[in-house]
């Protein structure tokens, strides 16, 4: 017979009450585990999607230039000592420390060219990486497959009066229009896209590129560091982070996390109340029992140990069950919440230990007052019989 024998036997006897307490705490812990895991998994999914959806690092030639535009009105600029980026330099990007975070590199060559009587801006792209990065593009027709096929922006298609399947002539060479972009509302609408090698040849810029967009998967990678790493590898280029994209991404994730934490806070509060009320009720029910313990010489600390040990055992059980149920809930809810088949559940050991630790802390803190109350019971009052 030790003090823990009393705690364990009491838990066994009051099965219904203890089951209620365990379930109450377990639901709280499960909700938090589900919220945290869903948030993490969704954040990871959103991060991946956003990374795939757009570039967040821009590589342009180094130049000592002053742009002259204000409020969208461009008055040209003064550019001098402009250097060009060699296509082969881009391979260096793959050697940076955070190279595993690079999702796609989209090199581009730009140049003005005449199509019939119209001046258009020709953009040479690597269609594979460009389409990966710009998943919002809707193409009527097909994506170009060979060097003799082009893709037209919606405005360019109208001006050149050419649609999917038509042909256009550039520098006395015939190109098939493989597809036309749906209106994007961006500069892409006015462009003619051709394959990079063909555009380089047409513009007389073989082996050179005008700019490159890089999409970095930013989970755990600071964009600033990657910018510095790329700049070190390509010293002739100007590497800059597209801050708006990065900040927007962080803000979206931050909002989701804050909502999740607020919900967890409410759940923690309700869970604490359940533990407090149940333990207080249990202590009041056991007034006589506690009176007997005190009368036969149990110290206040002995009474507290009995009550807190009961709370700890129930809380541990609730923690384990809460984690299991929470992860199960997250697994079931993730496909609906993330609206994506590719979203993966994140199994984080810190969530497992955290949930069990939280249950234990919560159970003990909420039981502290009932335990103190029990320990302070006057044995004479408690027994009433005396």
């Amino acid at each position, binding site marked *: *017979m*030790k*003090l823990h*024998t*009393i705690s364990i*036997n*009491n838990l*066994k*006897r009051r099965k219904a009450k203890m089951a209620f307490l365990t379930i109450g705490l377990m639901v709280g812990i499960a909700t938090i585990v589900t919220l945290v895991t869903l948030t993490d998994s969704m954040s990871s999914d959103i991060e991946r999607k956003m990374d795939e959806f757009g570039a967040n690092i821009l590589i342009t030639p180094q130049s000592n230039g002053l742009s002259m535009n204000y409020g969208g009105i461009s008055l040209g600029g003064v550019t001098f000592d402009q250097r060009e980026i060699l296509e082969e330099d881009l391979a260096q990007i793959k050697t940076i420390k955070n190279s595993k975070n690079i999702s796609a590199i989209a090199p581009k060559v730009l140049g003005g060219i005449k199509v019939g009587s119209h001046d258009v801006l020709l953009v040479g792209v690597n269609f594979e990486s460009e389409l990966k990065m710009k998943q919002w593009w809707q193409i009527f027709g097909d994506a170009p497959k060979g060097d003799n096929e082009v893709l037209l922006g919606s405005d360019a298609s109208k001006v050149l009066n050419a649609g999917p399947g038509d042909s256009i002539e550039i520098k006395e060479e015939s190109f098939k229009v493989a597809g036309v972009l749906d209106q994007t509302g961006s500069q892409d609408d006015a462009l003619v896209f051709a394959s990079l090698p063909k555009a380089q040849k047409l513009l007389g810029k073989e082996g050179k590129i005008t700019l490159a967009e890089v999409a970095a998967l930013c989970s755990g990678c600071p964009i600033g560091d990657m910018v510095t790493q790329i700049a070190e590898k390509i010293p002739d280029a100007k590497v800059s982070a597209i801050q708006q994209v990065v900040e927007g991404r962080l803000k979206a994730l931050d909002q989701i996390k804050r909502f999740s934490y607020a919900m967890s806070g409410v759940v923690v509060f309700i869970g604490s109340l359940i533990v407090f009320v149940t333990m207080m009720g249990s202590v009041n029910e056991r007034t*006589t*029992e506690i*009176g*007997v*313990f*005190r*009368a*036969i*010489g*149990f*110290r*206040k*600390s*002995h009474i507290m140990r009995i009550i807190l040990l009961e709370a700890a055992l129930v809380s541990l059980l609730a923690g384990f069950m809460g984690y299991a149920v929470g992860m199960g809930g997250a697994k079931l809810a993730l496909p609906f919440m993330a609206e994506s088949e590719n979203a993966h559940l994140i199994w984080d050991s810190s969530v497992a230990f955290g949930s069990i630790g939280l249950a234990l802390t919560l159970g003990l803190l909420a039981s502290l007052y009932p335990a103190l109350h029990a320990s302070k019971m*006057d*044995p*004479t009052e408690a*027994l009433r*019989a*005396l």
Partner: protein
Amino acid sequence: MALIEINNVKKRYTSGDDVVDALRGVDITIEAGEFITIMGQSGSGKSTLLSVLGGMNHPTTGEVEMAGVKLYKLPGEKLADFRAQNLGFVFQSFHLISYLTAIENVMLPLAIVKMSTSAKKTAARRALERVGLGTKLDRLPNQLSGGEQERVAIARAIVNNPHILLADEPTGNLDSETSKEVMALFRELNDAGQTVVMVTHNPEYGAYSDRTINLKDGKVVGAQA
């Protein structure tokens, strides 16, 4: 030197404007090995006196000295330790812990004592055998009769070999036949050297004790040997 000395003990309960003087200056001396019955009608202060004697109820004034120790001068939780080591209680409603077996109930006072589990079990078994329940060690309280529950309560009170056994109306919930058996058991324990102080309102049971102290309105009004 007497085992217990109660000197001019007064106990006043105050509740709002109501003031009740439960004990109005009680002086009692009890020798080691005595069997004392404290008798009196309801409200005479006998249960209050027993709780004061048991170190559970601080007197308003006066002193209780037991085996040379002034109980209410003990600091902090030392009084609880004193109860654990020197006193055994038998309550009117037995107050057995319903989720513990007979032997576990008897081992309860030993739960806070540094002893091996086997030594605790041996002591508890021996105490239960002394009260005639050696064959019902693993019964839960609800599987025992009233008399058997009372015996378990007595075994629990004597398992730590206390200096004094305090009993509050131990036959209050028992039929007359079982009550006589329980009283005979107290007599037997006393004959073996156990000091017993028992509160009862039934004069019939005074015959089992060495001395009867009568209380009325919080005062000792007589004593018979």
